[in-house]
Structure formats: C-alpha cells, structure tokens
C-alpha cells in the first residue's frame, strides 16, 4: 500500500490537473502528513499568485502600432526577401526543397563557432537554422519532434497551427551557432521567411541533451 502521495501528483492536484482527484481527496482526509503538505503547497501557490504584475506602460500599444507601421513601410519598397538578396533567384528558392541526407559532418560546425547566415549558402543556412538558433527545439524531450511537422503532407504530423506560426515568426537573419554533436532523425517541416514559405525535408536532429 502506498503510504503517501508523491509531490508531483499533489502539485497537480493543487492545480486541478491530477489524474484521479477523487482518490487524492480521499487520501488527504485520512493522512495528516499529506494534508499538511497539501496545505503548504496551496499556500505557496497562493503567495506566488499574489505577486503584483507591473503597471501598464503608458503608450505601449501606440508604440507597438508605430513599430508595425514602420516595419511595413520599410518592407514595402524592397519587398524582396532577404534570401533573394543572397543572389538566389525566386524559382530556385521555391525549389529549395532540401531532400536527402544531411550527414553529421554537414550539420556540425566548429564547437561554439558562430556562423552568420549570410556567410553560408542558402541550403546550408536552412539546415543550420533547423539545427540550431532560430527554431527553439524541445529543451528536454528529445523524442517528440511533432512541433516541427507543421504544414506536413502527412496527416499524422499536423500540430496545432500556432506551432507553425511560432516557427514562422523566427528571424532567419539571426546568426547561427553550433555547439556540439547531436543525434539524428528525420524531419519534415515548413518554415516561412518573410513572405515566402520554404518546405523542408531534411535529415537532421533535435536532440538537445545539452540544454
């Protein structure tokens, strides 16, 4: 017989997220030690919730709108995606479906050596962007890559749309930094750069055991 509730379940119970809350409730009625731990967790949670958020910033929304309009104004005359300014024609860009194996040697850069995207070829940049930097990969769960399978033609790989939007919102122009060897695995995804969508099918990796 299990004598006490584990901390993980009790914490979830406080949040209304326990799997079998009625069982926990029964246990709490019978076990003073767990009841005490439960009260302590409730108190801790209430204290954290009582933290006052910062005051509203005067004119913040107006500042955001000005920034959006400034962005729009800047983008309109050029309207040319940055990667085209790398010298890559649009047709080639649209055809930039990276299919095949990216070997470990290909995706690895020197340890801790930052590489600016504009200093490498577009295809290399795409690989690099998937491997590191712009796309935040799961911090600890290295097996679940479903977050990246946005816009995939495989029905079982359709994640919530906001995942795709989060990926698409990343700045492709940011520098890439490699910091070590990673495991490999198939990835199929779609990423937007400015107004252009890029479909990727690439063998790469998402193991982030070092994070």
């Amino acid at each position, binding site marked *: 017989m299990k004598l006490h509730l584990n901390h993980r379940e009790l914490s979830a119970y406080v949040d209304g997220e326990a799997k079998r809350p009625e069982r926990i409730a029964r246990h709490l009625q019978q076990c003073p030690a767990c009841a005490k731990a439960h009260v302590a967790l409730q108190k801790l949670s209430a204290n954290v*919730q009582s933290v006052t958020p910062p005051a509203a910033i005067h004119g913040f929304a107006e500042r955001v*709108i000005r920034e959006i309009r400034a962005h729009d104004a800047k983008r309109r005359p050029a309207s040319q995606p940055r990667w085209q300014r790398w010298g890559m024609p649009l047709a080639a860009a649209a055809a930039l479906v990276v299919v095949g194996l990216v070997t470990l040697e290909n995706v690895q850069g020197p340890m801790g050596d930052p590489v600016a995207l504009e200093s490498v070829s577009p295809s290399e940049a795409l690989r690099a962007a998937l491997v590191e930097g712009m796309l935040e990969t799961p911090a600890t769960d290295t097996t679940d890559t479903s977050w990246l399978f946005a816009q995939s033609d495989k029905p079982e790989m359709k994640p919530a749309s906001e995942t795709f939007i*989060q990926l698409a919102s990343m700045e492709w122009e940011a520098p890439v930094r490699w910091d070590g060897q990673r495991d490999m695995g198939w990835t199929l995804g779609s990423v937007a750069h400015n107004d252009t969508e890029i479909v990727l099918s690439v063998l790469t990796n998402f193991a982030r055991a070092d994070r």
Partner: protein
Amino acid sequence: MVPNSGDDWDLIARARDGDMNAFAELVRRYERPIVHFCQRMIGSREDAQDMAQESFVRVYRYLDRLEPSAKFSTLLFGISRNLALNFLRDTGRRGRGVTQSLTADDQQDMPIVDEHHRPDRSARLAEIEQRILEAMELLTPEHKEVLMLREFEGMDYSSIARIVKCRKGTVKSRIARARDQLRIHLERLGGESL
C-alpha cells in the same frame, strides 16, 4: 492572469481587416502579462518592454495564419518565450537564474512573522512578494517559465505544454519540481517557509 480569450477572435478578425485599433486593443489586453513574463524571464524591465513589443510585432505578422482553434495567448507567450530564451542564450545566462545575490544584511532583514500580529499588513505582503520574486529568480528558466505560466497567468497544463513545446507530463513534473525548488530557496532566504 491572462485575459479571457473568448472575444480575442473578434479583435483578431478586425485586425486582419486592417483595423489597427482592434490590434491595439489586443496589445492592451495582453501587455501587462507579457511584460511581466518577459521581465521575470530575463530580469530586466527595460529589455522586457522591448521584448514584449517585438512579440506583438511578430504576432501581428502572423494573424492571418492563426486558426480559430488556436489560442492567441498561447501563440503570444510562445513567441515571447522564444525571444526570452534567445536573449538568455545570447547573454550567456541561460543555465541559471539571473538574480543578484542577497547580501548578508538583506537576509537578516527577512524574519518570518505571524501575520496576525503584524500591524502593517501591506508591508508584510510586500515583503512576501519581494521574497517570492527573489526566490523565483533563483529557479532555472525551464522551471521558472512553467511556474509563471501556471501561477501568474493561470494557464492549464496543456496550454503550457504547447508554449514550452514539451509533453503535458513534463509540464506536470517541472511545475512540481519548480515548487519544490522555490520552497527550498524561500527557506534559505527567510529561514523558514512562508
């Protein structure tokens, strides 16, 4: 606490049609939670405001892609979270909290008192708040973010899992661990639990 998302969609629909007042209203609705989240993640109010602004600018670009099944708050916090992690990585602060250490004098000034005997309740609450924030700064970003999304924003585990891109079970473990760590830090800072 994040606003009720029920009528976000009306504003989103209007913003998609070019109504900037509608988008400004969305910004006002989420401004405080987002700035708060960014500030606690990176430890700087000024940088947090810039980060929040950038989050709203980015989310605006992708309004057209947002489907009704998606929550605007999940998308917004996800973008802010990515920006915050990138900031911590770029400034070399990702591995730990960003608080400044308390001085010995600071620590001596933090007695636990019985709330019933304290004449100045607001001072007591301010003290609790200060200690909680200091203890939270000592959490790792992975623990801090899930605890904030749960306690400050009142999000359920599924929403948090979508934002931090992990499984719901992982969120459950991280929140439990974060609370455990927070309790330990609070005891160290104040001598006993709040």
